């Protein structure tokens, strides 16, 4: 990293950005932007408490209410049948209060999981694409311990900051060693609200933002994840998961049911390894209706509104977010398209702060696990809506794919690759401007 070389020009530029940002606050921004707080368009709900991610769409058809309640029961319940290898007993165990992974003391289960990437698309030949911690009626696959190493650095203005990075320690592998080519990646379960809106965004709308060869020369590319649809054989756009490896909520839910609970949704593939095959033989198949109900529940979960969005410092932070380049990937606005049977989600002007594209975030965040077209360096831009409420809902706010960032500030400081320039702009901002940008993020 060449921070010293960049330091002086960045300092001058940062001052200019602050002036420009402040000017934007007082002149360019219209005085009445009454829709700013409606991150989810007409579906937006107003709740700043622990239930903020679990509310029904604000425009939900009343006839869906009873299904919504029943689907929530399904989301919360301990799954009656689960596979011999599992990481959780219920959906809600990982998606605590419909948010990100829970605080360690709030549930008995893991707050993160270990994704395996290996020589085959299915991950490790024996352990598959996820190293599960629990065995039911069989030996637990492995013992997993995460150790956090703290690192210190400082801003150019002398302010100190601390970051931390995880090291995964795997022991007691019950079914033999991992394949030498298998790679491990720590993952935090993402929040599950607002997913219906993201699913309703058309492929055309997402492709509009793609710039895989950086034709505009801004240093930010953005590539579409292309997935082969197992059912049709056609290539489809991926949009869910840390590397956008799932094209739909149905596919994402099926993958999570398999990987986390060890159950087999209909039409999913089977393993070839001897051990893995024996395990899969004992994995209970679930009815397609269960997957459908979970998808229905996820689609009906609303996005909470912004708070304090009109405060001057927040406005200043918002202008900085745009001007230093964060918004090149964390795009503010999208328009949803059509989603059959879900008129509530259609044609909504939403503000997810994502482009749903893959970006190279540099070697420090790379995990050496590729998924589809996404390399180990590439990650899908996560939406930022609900960011300021993560801690209220989940009791923790471990950000980035592995939860290493304990705050949005730490998350920014981990950005590299295509986002390195934006990160350096941020580092070189005056303290007050940095605080304003973080204040803005806290209102999302």
């Amino acid at each position, binding site marked *: 990293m060449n921070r010293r070389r960049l330091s002086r020009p960045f300092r001058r530029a940062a001052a200019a950005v602050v002036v420009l940002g402040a000017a934007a606050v007082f002149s360019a921004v219209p005085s009445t932007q009454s829709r700013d707080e409606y991150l989810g368009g007409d579906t937006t709900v*107003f709740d700043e408490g622990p239930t903020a991610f*679990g509310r029904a769409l604000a425009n939900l058809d009343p006839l869906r209410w009873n299904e919504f309640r029943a689907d929530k029961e399904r989301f919360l319940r301990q799954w009656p049948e689960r596979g011999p290898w599992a990481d959780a007993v219920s959906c809600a165990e990982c998606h605590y*209060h419909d948010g990100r992974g829970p605080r360690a003391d709030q549930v008995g289960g893991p707050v993160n999981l270990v994704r395996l990437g290996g020589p085959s698309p299915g991950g490790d030949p024996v352990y598959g694409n996820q190293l599960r911690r629990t065995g039911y009626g069989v030996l637990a696959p492995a013992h997993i311990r995460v150790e956090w190493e*703290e*690192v210190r650095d400082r801003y150019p203005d002398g302010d100190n900051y601390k970051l931390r990075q995880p090291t995964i320690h795997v022991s007691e592998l019950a079914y033999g060693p991992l394949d030498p080519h298998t790679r491990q990646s720590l993952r935090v379960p993402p929040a599950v609200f607002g997913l219906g809106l993201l699913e309703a965004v058309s492929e055309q709308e997402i492709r509009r933002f793609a710039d895989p060869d950086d034709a505009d020369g801004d240093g930010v590319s953005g590539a579409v994840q292309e997935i082969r649809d197992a059912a049709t054989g056609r290539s489809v756009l991926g949009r869910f998961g840390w590397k956008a490896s799932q094209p739909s909520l149905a596919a994402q839910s099926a993958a999570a049911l398999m990987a986390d609970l060890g159950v087999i949704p209909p039409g999913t593939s089977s393993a070839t390894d001897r051990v893995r095959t024996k395990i899969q033989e004992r994995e209970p198949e679930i009815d397609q209706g269960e997957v459908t109900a979970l998808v229905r529940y996820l689609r009906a979960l609303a996005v909470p509104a912004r708070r304090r969005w009109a405060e001057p410092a927040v406005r200043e932070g918002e202008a900085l977010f745009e001007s230093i380049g964060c918004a090149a990937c964390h795009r503010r606005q999208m328009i949803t398209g059509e989603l059959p049977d879900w008129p509530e989600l259609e044609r909504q002007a939403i503000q997810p702060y994502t482009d749903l594209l893959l970006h190279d975030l540099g070697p420090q965040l790379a995990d050496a696990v590729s998924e589809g077209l996404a390399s180990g360096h590439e990650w899908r831009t996560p939406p930022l809506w609900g960011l300021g409420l993560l801690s209220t809902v989940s009791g923790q706010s471990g950000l980035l794919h592995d939860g290493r960032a304990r705050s949005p500030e730490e998350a920014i400081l981990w950005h590299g690759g295509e986002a390195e320039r934006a990160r350096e702009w941020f580092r070189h901002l005056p303290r007050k401007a940095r605080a304003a940008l973080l204040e803005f993020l806290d209102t999302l």
Partner: protein
Amino acid sequence: MSKSFQVLAASSRVVAVLMAGAALAHAQSPPVVFQGLPHTPVGYAALQLDPARGALDVVGLGSTGKDGVAVRKDGSTSWTARVEVPVAATQLLNLSWSALADGRRIGSGLLRQNGDTLEMSGVFTGATTTPTFSAQVYNNGRLVGAVGSQPPTARVFFPITICTWVPEQCRIAAEFHTLDDGACMVKIVGSGAVPIRLPNGTIVTGNEVRLVEEVRPAGHYPYLGFDTMVTRSDAPSFAIVAESLR
């Protein structure tokens, strides 16, 4: 990263130890098991079992109305109990019962004495904007009056003689339920029929008042139940009798 980085060891176990310490610092008089359910004192309260009366006495309460008792059972949808609260010229009845899910209050019933009258109100949190409830009066199980769309400030009034009286004590059945449609309901049942004034001024005769949260599905939170019931009063003590939590 830059050479000024220093490596420090950190462990999530440290956080767990600190949190355990904090919990101990707040520990009060010991919990007791009553009716097979774990009860924990709240605030300055202490708990005493009275096997002869089949009662749990909640004593040592301050005058803030914040002290009382909590009973816990995961996945509960219904709580009923008879509450015995002292009432005297210098001690007006003030009682609240609240259901919590994951530490958050999902609904409450409140009874407050004003002279010879009790006023009952409810607080519900399922709605995304202004919550409303319907107030319903029953007489021996038969609906005799109701009014809907009531704001949180609405009150139902009835004479304190709805209580079963023993010397300087009001005995009344208090209940909390989560209903099949996700609504919460608070309820009191008295010993005999009295004139009850609904928030719109209508007066009917009954022995039971229900305040039922109104569910407007758009933006509503689908509470499926609760895990904790907290009963509080600003009386010096009160007793819980014939309690059920399921």
